[in-house]
């Protein structure tokens, strides 16, 4: 926080100094500015020296390596000649293919009907009386929905 205040003062000093003024005023201002700057530099140097000596920055190399690997990875993925990034699926690692809508069929555990997997969620929503559309319907046929749930 002290550093912030000092930086504000430094900006102020530069502003003052850049305005035309008498020679010795400028010299004095310049001297004080120099003192402040030295002090700030010394603060940072002292803190960094302590951090480095006590080994508090020993992860620095690993962190930079991770950053480098990420930058490299992004460049490789963005390369238009790289086909892996955006290829469509042909087979999965087990040699299987899958349709856009999951085709497995099983019984709904709420009403017992046979449902196609890929359409199970919209079915269940109505079946359980959940969701916006279902709630609108429920006000009209609430007995039917209640009966279905209690079966």
């Amino acid at each position, binding site marked *: 926080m002290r550093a912030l205040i000092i930086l504000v003062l430094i900006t102020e000093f530069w502003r003052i100094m850049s305005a035309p003024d008498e020679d010795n005023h400028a010299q004095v201002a310049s001297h004080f*500015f*120099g*003192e402040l700057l*030295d*002090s700030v*530099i*010394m*603060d940072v*140097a002292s*803190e*960094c*020296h*302590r*951090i*480095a*000596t*006590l*080994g*508090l*920055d*020993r*992860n620095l190399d*690993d*962190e*930079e390596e*991770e*950053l480098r*690997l*990420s*930058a*490299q*990875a*992004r460049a*490789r*993925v963005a390369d238009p000649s790289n086909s*892996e990034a955006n290829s469509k*699926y042909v087979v*999965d*690692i*087990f*040699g*299987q293919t*899958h349709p856009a809508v*999951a085709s*497995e069929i*099983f019984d*709904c*555990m709420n009403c*017992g009907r046979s449902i196609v*997997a*890929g*359409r*199970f*969620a919209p079915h*269940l*929503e109505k079946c*359980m009386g*959940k*969701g*916006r559309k279902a709630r609108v319907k429920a006000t009209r046929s609430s007995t039917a929905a209640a009966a279905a749930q209690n079966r």
Partner: protein
Amino acid sequence: MKLQNLTLTTTMSSNSDHQSHLHRSYASNQQQQSKAVIVPTPCSHLTEFKAGRGATAFGKLLEGIRVRPLGRASVRGEAFQVFRCGACGKVPPRLYACLSCDAVVCDVHAPDHEHEIAIDVDRAELFCCSCGDQVYDRDFDSAVVMSQTAAATLGGCNSLCAPPPESLRKRRRVDYRPWTPDSRERALLGSHSSLLPGNNEDLSSFPVGLKGLNNLGNTCFMNSVLQALLHTPPLRNYFLSDRHNGFVCQQKNGVNYNKNERKNKNLQKLCLACDTDALFSAVFSGDRKPYSPAKFLYSWWQHAGNLASYEQQDAHEFFISMLDGIHEKVDKDERKLHSQGSGACCIAHRVFSGILRSDVMCTACGFTSTTYDPCIDISLDLVPTHEGPTKTLHSCNGNAESINSGVSTLLGCLDRFTRPERLGSDQKFFCQQCQVRQESLKQMSIRKLPLVSCFHIKRFEHSPIRNMSRKVDRYMQFPFSLDMSPYLSSSILRSRFGNRIFGFDGDGNDPDCSNESTSEFELFAVVTHRGKLDAGHYSTYLRLSNQWYKCDDAWVTEVNENIVRAAQGYMMFYVQKMLYYKASGSS
């Protein structure tokens, strides 16, 4: 501006070469108390100075140290005294007060002074006039920290050194012991188990538990999180070792199994843990056809009524809801343990629950009020640029900056999360020491790391005022290996007090908090989101035996690690590199 007089040599010790590693000197200089900090070997002058004076070498310093609230320590002289160099009369940026006599010298005249050890008056740092370098000492730092904390507390070391309340149970650690069945167990295994259905030789060479999940209609938000959880090591181990037995659980809840299968399904007591167990069994069965988590969806919708609808949900919301569901089905007495953050209540919390520490500091006097709260994950704001923990050092290293300037990083987000934030003037905090409302700073840190850390990046912004939401697509770099130690309470406290060598809360041997050995994590799952806010798609990258796989609903494919590094991460799952085995039951 005369800067040429400013030379600061960085020497770790008189013997070792600075570049040649930290790791070697770490081993030789390691002290018991704080593994985070390397205490460097003192120079001969410092050793000599201390030898002559014993433990009270820096005793008189305690009176001489002046501390600004929340600020640095410096040396206080007589009232209105301005320190000047005894030799030249100047007041340069560096002035040293000798610890053996009353002399004050500047850096230019320090080597000429008869005594060696002095103290930097502005920064309260030890300086060796002979070596011409800043030196460090544990006893000196302790004396400084004591002065700083005395100023910040009601006449004692409050939350800075005191551990959290007794209610946080202590658990013993036991060493890992590999298990092999004895003859009775071997017989049981033989008679009560059957081989998994053998598939193709090729298929069995893939990691066990790798299996697609069918999309049941906009359920990729659920599939992506389930894939991550199916491969969360401690969670997987728990369910695969039958720690939640569905039969036992249903019996406890008064359900009697009868022969009529159909009737059973409606009589079954709702238990998300039972459904999770069924999911694990199916996915780890060895069969490679995709699985439809229909029963799971049905159970989850019964638990989370408000989220039950056929529309795209948020994966993170599902994650929280599912863990909550597992927690809720545990009986009430055990559930109480949750508030203490020990994770003893249920498997969900044992795996994911950590403890966050929140400090609110008075800007006028430095008094600090501390609270602890359990957390199940950490939600991070996406910070625009890389604000690394060592940003002061980065500016010396041009290379890192030019490649990565402007890139958001996970470490940058964590830095922002643990940064001191000034609370608004409308949120003035009542300071017990000042006895009035004062402006204050708030700072978060991690008191205890969970076994598995889940980081959620806030990419979906909802603005209730403007009644609109938007998605933040900005790329965020995340590491494969992560060291969380800079975000621990001990580290945050240490840096608040100038990185002094001192046993801050959380250091050392307290088993209930995290220290160096438990802060290394490895990435194992990434949930990503592609597309727009309401028309997008979730998929998960899994790391198994150092190979990455993409799980996109039913499709499981192998991918190169570059794809993962370049992906848009929404939730990242990291597991502790070294899992300790804790003694189960009461301590």
